[in-house]
């Protein structure tokens, strides 16, 4: 048996954490971009667009992320499309987080008073201009806390990419445990690292929210 020192365990977990962070960033940035596009569809004037976006969101929010990853990687492979694992992971995580972000942001856009749409329309702005100059800047303020809050779910969600071969934090935990038979030490450390990644995000989301509420009350 090879013996792992505590440092060996921690080092390997931290190395794997790089994947967790990288995948989170990809998922967040990609999901943000696709989510924004999806948001436009979801609140479009055209019913067809709204319906498409609605079903998309329903599908991606209604199935386990694990399966989405599996299908993105192996499902496409079945059809002879050889997607590398990083692409499949990026794709699935992006599509998945886009569904959630679009829905979060829709709530924020709808929170902007109807009068703002009407006032900007009566000034001759087109729909995109209204969004760009009037609605989004206001929605953005309320959107920041729940968006940051959701990033915690993304960080935890990346754990599932192990199904397509990524040895990120969770998977590294399992693998190391299987070599060391010290589940407590290893999972304790894993939990700690996740907490260290997620807690600052949750906390800043809460602080932002509180700031926002105070700002609201001052109006």
């Amino acid at each position: 048996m090879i013996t792992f020192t505590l440092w060996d365990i921690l080092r390997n977990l931290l190395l794997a954490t790089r994947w967790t962070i990288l995948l989170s960033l990809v998922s967040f940035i990609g999901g943000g971009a696709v989510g924004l596009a999806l948001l436009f569809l979801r609140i479009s004037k055209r019913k067809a667009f709204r319906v498409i976006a609605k079903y998309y969101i329903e599908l991606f929010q209604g199935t386990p992320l694990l399966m989405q990853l599996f299908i993105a990687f192996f499902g496409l492979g079945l059809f002879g499309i050889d997607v590398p694992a990083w692409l499949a992971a990026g794709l699935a995580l992006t599509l998945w987080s886009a569904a959630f972000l679009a829905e979060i942001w829709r709530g924020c856009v709808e929170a902007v008073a109807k009068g703002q749409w009407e006032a900007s329309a009566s000034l001759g702005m087109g729909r995109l201009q209204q969004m760009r100059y009037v609605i989004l800047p206001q929605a953005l303020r309320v959107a920041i806390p729940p968006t940051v809050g959701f990033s915690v779910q993304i960080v935890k969600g990346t754990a599932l990419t192990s199904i397509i071969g990524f040895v990120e934090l969770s998977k590294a935990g399992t693998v190391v445990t299987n070599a060391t038979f010290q589940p407590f030490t290893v999972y304790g450390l894993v939990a700690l690292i996740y907490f260290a990644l997620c807690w600052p995000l949750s906390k800043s989301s809460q602080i932002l929210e509180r700031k926002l509420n105070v700002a609201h009350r001052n109006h």
Partner: protein
Amino acid sequence: ADALADITARGTLRVAVPQDFPPFGSVGTDMAPMGYDIDVANLIAEKLGVKAELVPVTSANRVPYLQTNKVDLVISSLGKNAEREKVIDFSAAYAPFFNGVFAPADLSIAKAEDLAGKSIGVTRGAVEDLELTKIAPADATIKRYEDNNGTISAFLSGQVDTIATGNVVAAAILAKNPPKRPEMKFLIKNSPCYIGLNKEQAALLEKVNAIIAAAKTDGSLNAISQKWLGADLPSDL
């Protein structure tokens, strides 16, 4: 397409290997895979005259890797059954199965029938899962965990009475001096491991079988067995 030709052309043999199933596959302190299956993978690659490219897999995705042509072989302590054989091909046996049922001394178990009323922890999809499902009495409860670690943790935390695992693993558990000292109750026999290949790859299958046969005679497979299982290859393999 002919897989063997592809491998030769590519110069690499892509092999799915476990990293959560010691002693067949686990990792070293540098997170590189190691174990019985890894050594066999390297051996076959060497004999084919190509480089081995190891792809760590889990029990849930090892076959999809093969089916989608992301690997050429699955050397992941696969057991064989009729249903599996409908989907993929199996080589000749490359590893014995020295796995047994382990339990603390105060449990008197000598054969499969004695498992009645007991709970047994196994790793889902592993050979011992397939075998025990066949031979365990109806009122024994088989608990199937995701990986070896789950199985061992379940045993150590008392969630199951007995586990089925390899003797080397059991020795490793013993070395940690747990309150429940597992001792071997009986061996799960007649259930060696096979290498998995895609169907209709006769050339590759033939080649792999030839390499295994050669390795059995020239003693290199026996050396791997000694190294990881602490025992000689049984003569009937």
